[in-house]
């Protein structure tokens, strides 16, 4: 008999259920190093084909499978079952509307990402070759460019839960990624958006985003950098 682990999975089908409920599944540990995603796949493929969840690359790059597992937001594909205390409670990312089971509606999250203009803005004429930067300037982008938009950070943030207008750690980290880029010339128009009650000033340094980020980034620090630049500009 192989070892089994209990998965307590959040279920909600808006067409059938009045209220969400939790369903227990016994996941069989068939090989060492099984990830939570392997367990979810086992449930969908062998026990209950109606379980809805997102996944794609299964190696922590696509950012599809951000889930709330045992109360902490993380990616199911890079989280070992053996690292978690059973029963493993799996919920959709907090505060976002549930589409079905573990699938949430990310429209609002993505709109906030687009709002900070997450692309290179330039006004000076392009040089003959590519726009160059020094290794030091490039180094400033480490810890910013790696964001995979899994929404783990933003949906772990109490300020994000409380204020539906708050841009959230992810969008702000991505704005910092371009504001601190030596090649970018759109800092002022981005500051106009993030220098707002629902922008950087809504961050109360609760630090949940740091714990949640599966890529080990530090959105709070990035927001702190932005605050510092804004305060220096103003005072």
């Amino acid at each position, binding site marked *: 008999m192989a070892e089994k682990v209990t998965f307590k999975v959040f279920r909600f089908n808006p067409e059938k259920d009045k209220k969400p409920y939790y369903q227990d599944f016994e996941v069989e540990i068939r090989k060492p190093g099984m990830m939570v995603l392997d367990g979810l796949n086992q449930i969908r493929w062998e026990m209950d084909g109606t379980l809805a969840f997102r996944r794609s690359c299964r190696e922590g790059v696509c950012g599809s499978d951000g889930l709330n597992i045992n109360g902490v937001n993380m990616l199911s594909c890079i989280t070992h079952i053996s690292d978690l205390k059973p029963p493993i409670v799996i919920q959709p990312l907090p505060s976002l509307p549930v589409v079905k089971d573990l699938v949430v509606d990310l429209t609002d999250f993505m709109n906030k990402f687009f709002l900070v203009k997450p692309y290179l803005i330039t006004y000076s004429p392009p040089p003959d070759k590519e726009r160059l930067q020094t290794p030091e300037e490039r180094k400033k982008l480490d810890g910013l460019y790696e964001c995979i938009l899994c929404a783990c950070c933003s949906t772990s943030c109490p*300020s994000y839960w409380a*204020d539906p*207008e708050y841009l959230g750690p992810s969008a702000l980290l991505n704005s910092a990624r371009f504001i601190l880029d030596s090649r970018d010339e759109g800092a002022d128009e981005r500051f106009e958006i993030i*220098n*707002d*009650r629902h922008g950087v000033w*809504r961050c109360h340094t609760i630090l949940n985003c740091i714990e949640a980020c599966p890529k080990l980034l530090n959105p709070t620090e990035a927001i702190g950098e932005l605050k510092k630049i804004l*305060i220096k500009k*103003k005072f």
Partner: protein
Amino acid sequence: MKYFGSGRSGAFDWFFQRVSGIVLLVTLFLHFYVMHFAIEGPITYEKVMVRLSSPGWKALDIVFLIFAVYHAVNGFKLIIDDYVHSTVLRAVTIGLLWVMGIAFLTIGIMTIVNLRVQS
């Protein structure tokens, strides 16, 4: 969308919450030092009141009071900003906050200004 009565970005609130916090921290340690180390024990009413009645200390106390009231009121304002989304309720709570802040400031300043050693 802007909330009721908030044309400002919040940068000032954020920055001066930190500034007033540092001022409070400094005055706290100053109080601790003066009360427990600089004074020759035992601490009596006379000794304390003589110090508190001097113009220099009154000025310092008023500065402390202003920063303390600002820090407290601004803190509540941030909590209201976070959790109260209804325009009417915001107007009422922030209005109450202003009334309370001004009341505390007035009572405090009156108390400090009128301090004298009573026999």
